[in-house]
C-alpha cells in the first residue's frame, strides 16, 4: 500500500528571501510558499514574480512544494505558481465545491502548458468558515486532486466572533467533522490539537511533541507549521515510535501463532488481540516503513545540497 507521508508542512512567505533561502534546511516534508496571509497587500503583485525562483530554492531538501494562493486572485496566483518542481496548491477560504473545481481546471490547463505530467498537481484545501465546515463533504469530494484538508482555526475564530481562551476548545466539533469526513472520503485531514491552531505559539520541544502526538491521535495526518521550530516535533509525533513498532511486531507474532492454533482472539498484555488489532499493527508497520523511506530521501538530498 502507498501511504502519503506529509507530516510537516512549513509556511514560508515568498516575499521573505531569508526564510525562502533557509527553508530547505529544516527537514519539513513539505514547504508552502505563501502568497496569501503571509504577504502584506502592498506586495501581493510583486510576490507572484518571486515564486518560480523560490520553488527552485526550497526544493533542495526533497520537500514537496506548495503555494498558498489568494482566493480572490486565484487565477493570477496559480498561473504564477505552476512550475516544474511544484507538488500543488494550498487553497484557502474554500466555501464551495465550485472553488475546488475552478482551481482544478486551472491546474489542468497549466499542467499541459508547462510540461507537467497531467493530473499530478494536487490541492490542500483550507476551511475557514462555519459554512465550509458544514459543507466539508461536498467540498472535498469535488475533485480528484484534493489530497489534504485542514481548518484555519485562526480565521474561523475571527469569523465566528470567538476570542479563544486556552482552556475552552471551540473546535472539537469542527475538527472531528473534518477528521471523519476527510478519512471517509480518502482525503488526509491535517490539523493540530487545541489551542495551537487558534493561537499559534512557540513551545518547548517536549510540549510541542505532546500536542503534535495528540493531533495524530485525533485522526490528523500532518500539521501545517507557521514556524520551523515545530517541524522536528511534528515529524517525530507522526512517525511510529520504536517501542510501538516493537510492540506491534510482537502483536503480529502472537496473533499469527493464535491463528495457527485455531483461534483469532488471544490475550496479550491485558488486551485482547484479534483481527482489528492485527490490522492496525500492519498499518503502524507500513507507516513506519514509509516514514523511514521519506526521511532517507530527505537525508540524502540534504547531504547533497549541503556539500
Amino acid at each position: 500500500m502507498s501511504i502519503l507521508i506529509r507530516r510537516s508542512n512549513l509556511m514560508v512567505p515568498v516575499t521573505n528571501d531569508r526564510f525562502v533561502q533557509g527553508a530547505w534546511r529544516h527537514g519539513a516534508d513539505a514547504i508552502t510558499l505563501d502568497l496569501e496571509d503571509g504577504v502584506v497587500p502592498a506586495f501581493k503583485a510583486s510576490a507572484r514574480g518571486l515564486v518560480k525562483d523560490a520553488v527552485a530554492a526550497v526544493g533542495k531538501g526533497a520537500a514537496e512544494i506548495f503555494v498558498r494562493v489568494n482566493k480572490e486572485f486565484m487565477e493570477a496566483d496559480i498561473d504564477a505558481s505552476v512550475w516544474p518542481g511544484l507538488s500543488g496548491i494550498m487553497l484557502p477560504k474554500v466555501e464551495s465545491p465550485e472553488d475546488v473545481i475552478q482551481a482544478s481546471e486551472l491546474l489542468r490547463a497549466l499542467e499541459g502548458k508547462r510540461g507537467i505530467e497531467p493530473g499530478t498537481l494536487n490541492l490542500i484545501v483550507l476551511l475557514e468558515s462555519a459554512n465550509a465546515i458544514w459543507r466539508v463533504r461536498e467540498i472535498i469530494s469535488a475533485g480528484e486532486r484534493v489530497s489534504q484538508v485542514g481548518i484555519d482555526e485562526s480565521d474561523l475564530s475571527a469569523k465566528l466572533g470567538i476570542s479563544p481562551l486556552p482552556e475552552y476548545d471551540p473546535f472539537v466539533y469542527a475538527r472531528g467533522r473534518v477528521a471523519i469526513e476527510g478519512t471517509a472520503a480518502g482525503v488526509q485531514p491535517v490539523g493540530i490539537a487545541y489551542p495551537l491552531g487558534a493561537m499559534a505559539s512557540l513551545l518547548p520541544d517536549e510540549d510541542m511533541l505532546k500536542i503534535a502526538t495528540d493531533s495524530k491521535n485525533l485522526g490528523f495526518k500532518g500539521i501545517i507549521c507557521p514556524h520551523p521550530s515545530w517541524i522536528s516535533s511534528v515529524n517525530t509525533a507522526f512517525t511510529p515510535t520504536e517501542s510501538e513498532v516493537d510492540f506491534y511486531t510482537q502483536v503480529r507474532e502472537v496473533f499469527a501463532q493464535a491463528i495457527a492454533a485455531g483461534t483469532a482472539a488471544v490475550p496479550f498484555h491485558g488486551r485482547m488481540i484479534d483481527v482489528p488489532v492485527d490490522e492496525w499493527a500492519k498499518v503502524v508497520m507500513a507507516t513506519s516503513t514509509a516514514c523511514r523511506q521519506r526521511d532517507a530521501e530527505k537525508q540524502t538530498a540534504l547531504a547533497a545540497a549541503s556539500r
Partner: protein
Amino acid sequence: MTTNTILPQKIRRSWLLVPASQKERSVTAAKSNADVVLLDLVEFVSDRDKPSAREGIAETVRELREGGAEVFVQVDSELLYADLHACVCPELTGIVIAHLESIAQIQEADTLLSQLEDERGILSGALEIVASLETAQANQDAFQIATASPRISGLTLGRAELVMDLRPEPSGEIHLMQYLMQRLITVAGAVGVQPYGAWCREPDRGLLATPENTSNAAIRGRAVGFKGSFCVLENQVEPLNSGFTPGAQEVDEASQLLKQYQAAVTEGAASIRIADRIFDAGASLQAQATIDRASKIAVHDQAKADAQAGRPVPAP
C-alpha cells in the same frame, strides 16, 4: 433555502425568562437590565394557566418594551395558533419556538406571523423567530430548520438537557452537550444567525444557576461562540451581560496587538512575535472582532440606559 447573512447582529446577551402567568414578575423583569425579556407561555406556565396567561400578554409586551429591553415571547410548538394570536403586536420583536419537532412547525409559524403582521399593521417580515432545538430530531435537522424561514435570527438549545434527559458525566460536564453546543454554533455560523446558550456544568440545571456559575457558563459560552443566553432568575442577568461582553483588559490587549500588527504590516511583515505567540492576519482579525463587538455593546448599553431613564431613544 434562505440564509440570513445580512441580518443585523443585535446585542442580545441576556434573555430573562418570565412566566406570562405571573404579571407581577414582568414589573421586576423590566428593571432587570436584561437585553431581552422572554415572556414564557411554555416552560413555567401550566396547561391550566395557559388561557389566562395569554390574556393581556400583548399589553405586557408593550409595557416591557417601554423599559428598553427587546421583548420575545416563548411559544409552544404545538399551540402556535393560539399563542401567536395572543402575543403578536407592533412592540414584539419575535418569538422563541420551544420544543421544536419539525420543519413544518417553522413553516406554520412563519405563515401565521405573516398573516398577523398584515392584520395588525406590522412591517411585513419584521417578526423574528428563534428556534429552540431541544429535541434530538430538531438538532438532527438543525440546518434545514435554520434555513426554513428568513425570519430565523437565532438558534438555541434551550433546555435541551432536560428535554433530552442529558445528565452530568463523572467529569461534571453534561453528557453530549459539548457536541450539541458546537454543532449548533457551526450551523448558526453556516446560516448566518446568532447561537444562544451558555456552557453549563453540574450542578447547573435547565438555565438555572447561581450568579457565579452563570458568569462562568457565560464566559465559557462566549469562548466557544455563543452570543448570549437564556436565564430564569433576575440575578443571572448581570452575570450574562458581563460574561458575554469582552472585558476591558481583553479589549485593551486587542487594541495594543492590532497597533503593533499594523505597524509591522507597514514595514512589510505579515506576522509578528510577541513573547511566544505568533500574531498573523487571522489573529489580527480576531482582535478586530473583539474591539468591534465591545464598541457595539457600549452603544447598545448607552441606548438601553437612555430608554430606562426615559430619555428619547434615537432611531436605530
